[in-house]
């Protein structure tokens, strides 16, 4: 692949690179080493992930993006311990992980609140699994519910909540366990645009206020740029790390920044990585057909 010329805004100012240098000096929370995953399918062995390497540092916000089928979800499921890798390893605080545990909180794409428990009981669930007494779990849970702004709904059941509220409870439920890292698998994917941007702001606010590292999967470039310190770009077939981009858009960020030069430059760079210029043949073909149709219409009109 030919090297794409970097737009000037991607070249980091000294202040920005100093920020990232400082970030990288923090302790490593999660480290992924030579991770690979293969599935046996009817077509033979399919490589879903190949040779993935990256680190997340304390209080860092990392987004993973990539085209569909690049193994984003497989990656996060392996990190959570819900699937095991075919090769390589996942280290949390330098200790290998093999199975799911409360040290890695997870927020799923679908709604996974327990429908038979109310909001408070849902948030208490993990604490009780850890052996906390009911009273201490309850007061702890109420703190987290307040943090996600749902104190008025502590006694409501999931079916009485909107999609955004459900995901806020899911975040509170995962955080209540005080995990080392919060894994989020396209958590806002099912929400409408307005709710999603509110949820993003909400999440950033929570992240700023507590000591948590976040690994967030999305296919939405704007979402990734708005949220992340660094963006891990995966490419498909096999899922490999294409590049790790440091987002130079300064914090605190605002949705208005979506048209700022840094934002646009980052977005352009991501688009180039996900849809490299060489792979546009199909799209060109489609374009041609459309043009031809329009041309015909014009002729008929005359």
């Amino acid at each position, binding site marked *: 692949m030919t090297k794409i010329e970097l737009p000037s805004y991607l070249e980091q100012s000294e202040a920005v690179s100093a920020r990232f240098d400082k970030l990288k000096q923090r302790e490593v929370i999660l480290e992924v080493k030579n991770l690979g995953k293969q599935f046996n399918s009817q077509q033979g062995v399919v490589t879903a992930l190949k040779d993935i390497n990256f680190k997340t540092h304390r209080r860092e916000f990392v987004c993973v993006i990539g085209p569909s089928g690049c193994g984003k979800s497989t990656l996060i499921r392996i990190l959570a311990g819900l699937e095991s890798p075919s090769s390589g390893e996942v280290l949390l605080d330098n200790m290998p992980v093999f199975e*799911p*545990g409360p040290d890695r909180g997870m927020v799923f794409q*679908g709604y*996974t609140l*327990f429908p*038979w428990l109310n909001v408070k009981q849902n948030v208490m*669930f993990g604490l009780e699994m850890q052996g906390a007494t009911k009273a201490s779990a309850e007061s702890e849970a109420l703190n987290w519910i307040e943090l996600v702004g749902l104190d008025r709904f502590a006694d409501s059941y999931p079916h009485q909540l909107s999609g955004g509220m459900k995901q806020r409870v899911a975040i509170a439920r995962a955080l209540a366990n005080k995990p080392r890292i919060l894994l989020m698998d396209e958590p806002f994917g099912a929400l409408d645009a307005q709710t999603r941007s509110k949820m993003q702001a909400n999440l950033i606010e929570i992240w700023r206020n507590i000591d948590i590292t976040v690994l967030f999967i999305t296919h939405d470039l704007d979402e990734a740029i708005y949220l992340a310190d660094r963006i891990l770009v995966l490419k498909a077939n096999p899922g490999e790390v294409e590049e790790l981009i440091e987002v130079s858009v300064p914090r605190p960020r605002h949705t208005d920044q979506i048209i700022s030069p840094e934002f646009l430059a980052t977005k352009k760079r991501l688009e180039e990585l996900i849809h490299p210029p060489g792979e546009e043949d199909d799209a060109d073909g489609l374009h041609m057909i459309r043009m031809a149709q329009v041309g015909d219409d014009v002729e008929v009109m005359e």
Partner: protein
Amino acid sequence: MSQSTPWFAVRQALTKKQVTTLTLLSFFLPILLWSLVSYVPFLWHPKVEIVEPGSVTWLKPGMLVDKSVFAEQQQLATEQKSALPEGVGANPIYLPAPHEVAIAFYTAFTTEPTRSSEQWLHESLWHSIQIIFWGFTLSSLIGVPIGVLCGTYVAISRLQEPFIEFFRYLPAPAFGALAVAILGIHDGPKIAIIFIGTFFQQVLIIANTTRKLDVALLEAALTLGAKKFQLLFRVVIPGILPDLFRDQRILLGWAWTYLIVAELIGTSSGITWFITQQARYKNFDNVYAAIIMIGIIGVVTDILLAKLGKRLFPWEKEQVKA
């Protein structure tokens, strides 16, 4: 006035009033048909009830004869210029009119049994209900836990289900003689038949319901630190309870269908005894009354259980049912 839904809108909920109307109609229409056949002579009435035998010696008042036979006799009498037999159109004895069944329904509870050894209708019914209760309870006590375990652990499912799949094809009544040999002639074998009829289906159905629990809930629990038995007791069981309750309602209905067979085994008893006895005496009005009674008990139990389910599982979203 509230807007009502078009009657034949595809998969759209009807208004409460429409639903009530249809519910009433669903009972009213069969009764209407029954009434028409019973009270409108030209519709069916294949028999003739003799009112006045006339000159035909073998006819007695109240006797039912075929229309063709009656016509023949009338013809004969006309030719011989003797007194004509008279009669009115009637239905066969096995189809009593609604009002006769209604009266039988009432008298069945008020009439003393003809012999002191016999039971009142309500005693027979109560006996049947007890048979169902014990058969179903015993089956559930074993079948529900096994079903849940089969649905949760693949190993248990692989160990249990092949044999159960085989066994459920064996008709429960086939074990009647065996049950009598082992358990005697009284209630034991009857309860056993209900048990056999219910248990094997129960395990498979409950296992299937358990398997339908969203895996994502189990995964979420795992990432929250739930381990082995916590998963079973804190996620699987509460997660399937509403569906399990619904399954049990359906299974209870099946248990009732085995009742009649079960009660014929050993010494005949309960509502079946009442029905067979009354049929032998050709008191078909009583037979219908007893059958309707079983239906009413079934429907009322089911409605009560449905209400109980709603109260027990308030988090269950309104299921589309109408």
